[in-house]
């Protein structure tokens, strides 16, 4: 049975059962406040990330720009941008989508919304302190884990609150059969606290000695971007694609296979070849990275077969566009990562802009785009309102899509060129660096487009809330006048 269960079945109300049914509207009502809070602050952080990213990008146009202020130096605004994107947007949007999906797939109300709201508060206080800390020079010095201790402790407890609410919701589910997405989302719930506490304990609280720090940092960064983002992004996509297209996922078993191979192979990769560590580490890493081809191809086949021949009465559904682009970016970035881990290619791409291009394609192209799609699908249900201006949603899609393409493509191409030039000892180093400048400058266009997209994203969400607030104000007023009428 579980093999053929589809989300449309599991959500459809009305199938007679002993337990009283909870309607989708009731579930949405239970999720409304906490999930909207997570989405809104995520939208705020992704805009903040753009702001820092543009400042960092400007340094490649003119190194003297804003050089007089220590807090605007490249080495501070660059990590501020990446941390705002990963922790401010990524984790919050991911958790919001996760909670909504777990509640709906379990056909149960969100458990303990106050716990989520408390967690949200802790998380945002932590991220805010952390970003200010990085700008002020308190970065820990570990890439992807720059947020200082006074930020990571509240963030960890915030996650525990939100995660616990997710677990409770899962536990009290009324639909006992599990849909494939629940595997992904449940694993993600466990994954983050383990890697985050482990990395923070061993790197920040009681640092291990020497180059082990770099190994643990690489392990953490890989687990966060490949596994956590992978689990949440794919979990959401495997629910939303069938839901929007009204076709079942092509293969449930292929989805399960993706789950197993992703958590096993995905968690072992990304110690670069040539690193000053015992040789077996990069060797094992490369082996595992090549094996991640398996889940990548499984996703490609599954999504392609699900969408194959879909003509699309819902063709212009913006959520589907975002998610379809996200899946394409997942496959492409996965192939880039496999390529870059191979011996010969890694000798070219190591230490070049190819690596951040691939990383951004995972974090933004795949994960953020999938989350945008999921948010555009979920928010109208939460607020029971349609977006005022559907054109603005479409505009966000085109800006984000063009933005990430114009960001990642020049960096990837420029990175390969840079790597080839670096490996030619006759090319002076300064020429290698100046050779990358046109590509870096081109990628600023991408940064700008994405920033405009994020502004529109925030306005879309805020516009819906204003509409909702206006409507509830009206009803409250009319109730008031009625009550007043009765009294008089």
């Amino acid at each position, binding site marked *: 049975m579980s093999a053929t269960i589809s989300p449309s079945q599991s959500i459809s109300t009305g199938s007679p059962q002993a337990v009283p049914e909870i309607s989708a509207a009731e579930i949405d009502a239970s999720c409304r406040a906490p999930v909207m809070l997570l989405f809104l602050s995520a939208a705020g952080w992704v805009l903040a990330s753009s702001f820092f990213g543009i400042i960092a990008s400007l340094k490649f146009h003119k190194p003297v720009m804003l050089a007089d202020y220590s807090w605007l130096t490249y080495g501070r605004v660059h990590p501020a941008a990446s941390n705002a994107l990963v922790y401010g947007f990524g984790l919050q949007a991911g958790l919001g989508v996760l909670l909504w999906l777990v509640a709906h797939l379990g056909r149960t109300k969100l458990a303990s919304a106050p716990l989520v709201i408390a967690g949200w508060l802790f998380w945002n206080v932590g991220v805010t302190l952390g970003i200010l800390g990085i700008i002020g020079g308190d970065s820990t010095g570990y*890439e992807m884990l720059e947020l200082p201790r006074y930020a990571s402790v509240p963030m960890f407890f915030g996650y525990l609150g939100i995660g616990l609410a997710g677990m409770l919701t899962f536990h009290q589910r009324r639909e006992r059969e599990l849909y494939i997405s629940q595997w992904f989302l449940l694993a993600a719930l466990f994954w983050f606290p383990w890697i985050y506490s482990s990395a923070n304990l061993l790197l920040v609280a009681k640092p291990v000695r020497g180059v082990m720090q770099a190994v643990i940092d690489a392990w953490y960064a890989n687990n966060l971007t490949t596994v956590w983002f992978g689990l949440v992004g794919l979990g959401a996509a495997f629910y939303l694609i069938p839901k929007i297209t009204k076709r079942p996922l092509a293969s449930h078993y292929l989805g399960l296979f993706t789950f197993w191979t992703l958590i096993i192979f995905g968690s072992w990769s990304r110690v670069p070849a040539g690193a000053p560590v*015992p040789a077996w580490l990069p060797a094992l890493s490369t082996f595992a990275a090549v094996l991640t081809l398996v889940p990548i191809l499984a996703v490609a086949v599954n999504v392609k077969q699900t969408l194959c021949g879909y003509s699309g009465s819902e063709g212009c559904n913006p959520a589907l566009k975002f998610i379809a682009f996200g899946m394409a970016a997942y496959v492409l970035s996965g192939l880039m990562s496999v390529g870059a881990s191979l011996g010969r290619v890694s000798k070219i791409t190591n230490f070049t802009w190819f690596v951040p291009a691939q990383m951004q394609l995972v974090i933004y192209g795949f994960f953020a785009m999938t989350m945008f799609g999921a948010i555009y699908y979920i928010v109208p249900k939460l607020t029971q309102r349609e977006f005022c201006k559907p054109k603005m949603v479409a505009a966000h899609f085109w800006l984000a899509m063009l933005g990430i393409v114009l960001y990642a493509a020049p960096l990837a191409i420029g990175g390969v060129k840079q790597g080839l030039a*670096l490996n030619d000892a006759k090319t002076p180093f300064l020429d290698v660096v100046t050779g990358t400048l046109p590509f870096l400058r081109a990628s600023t266009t991408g940064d700008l487009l994405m920033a405009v997209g994020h502004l529109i994203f925030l306005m879309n969400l805020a516009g819906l809330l204003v509409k909702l607030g206006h409507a509830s104000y009206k009803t409250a007023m009319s109730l008031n006048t009625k009550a007043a009428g009765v009294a008089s």
Partner: protein
Amino acid sequence: MNPGPLVFLATFFALATSWLGFVVMPQLQIGRQQQVEIKDTGEMYPARRPGLAKQGEEVYRANGCYYCHSQQVRPLGFGTDVARGWGARPSPVQSVAQDYLYDQPVMLGSQRVGPDLTNIGLRQTNEVWLLSHLYNPQLTSKGSTMPPYPFLFMKSKLALGEKPSPNAVFVVNGPKENYEILPTDKAKALVAYLGSLHSEAIVFETPPFPSTNAPAASTNAPVIATATNSVPTNSPAK
């Protein structure tokens, strides 16, 4: 059947394997490394950083220098690190785990927007050059893409006839006013840290080239000399 526990077990199993493999195992292997004695000189390697250089490490971390500068020379045959004069070991193996024992945090870097700094302490021994480079890279390396760091310096006006401080990086005699550029404590610490960056000692993991090994025990001294000579002092590989 309730598959919930199965998902939990799968996750636990996969993550525990990865954690054991990439956190616990390497920690058991290299986590307890100690200083070693260098045969030829009898010195302990790596040396602990003196206080000022340790403070400079904090400046290096706070300002994120490692986003553009790596501190990791790859072995011979992996890229052109050695040919570019970034390595200082007379060995096919360059950076090894032993080198980073007292780095806190270890900042290997992942990008080469600027040159590798593993051996900058050998390559550039002129402190005034380094200070000028930090104040404004264009002064020392024309065309450099590195941003200037004026916030690590103080600009101090000089009265007519006043002698500049001996610490001044340089003095500007403008038409209207004279002033000198003084390094802050942070700039001095950062330069001390850069000076402490060197890994040329031959250790167990970096066997010397067979040819250099043959004529008796080669000391470290000539090694340093060749390393510094390979790059002219005033035009380091930018």
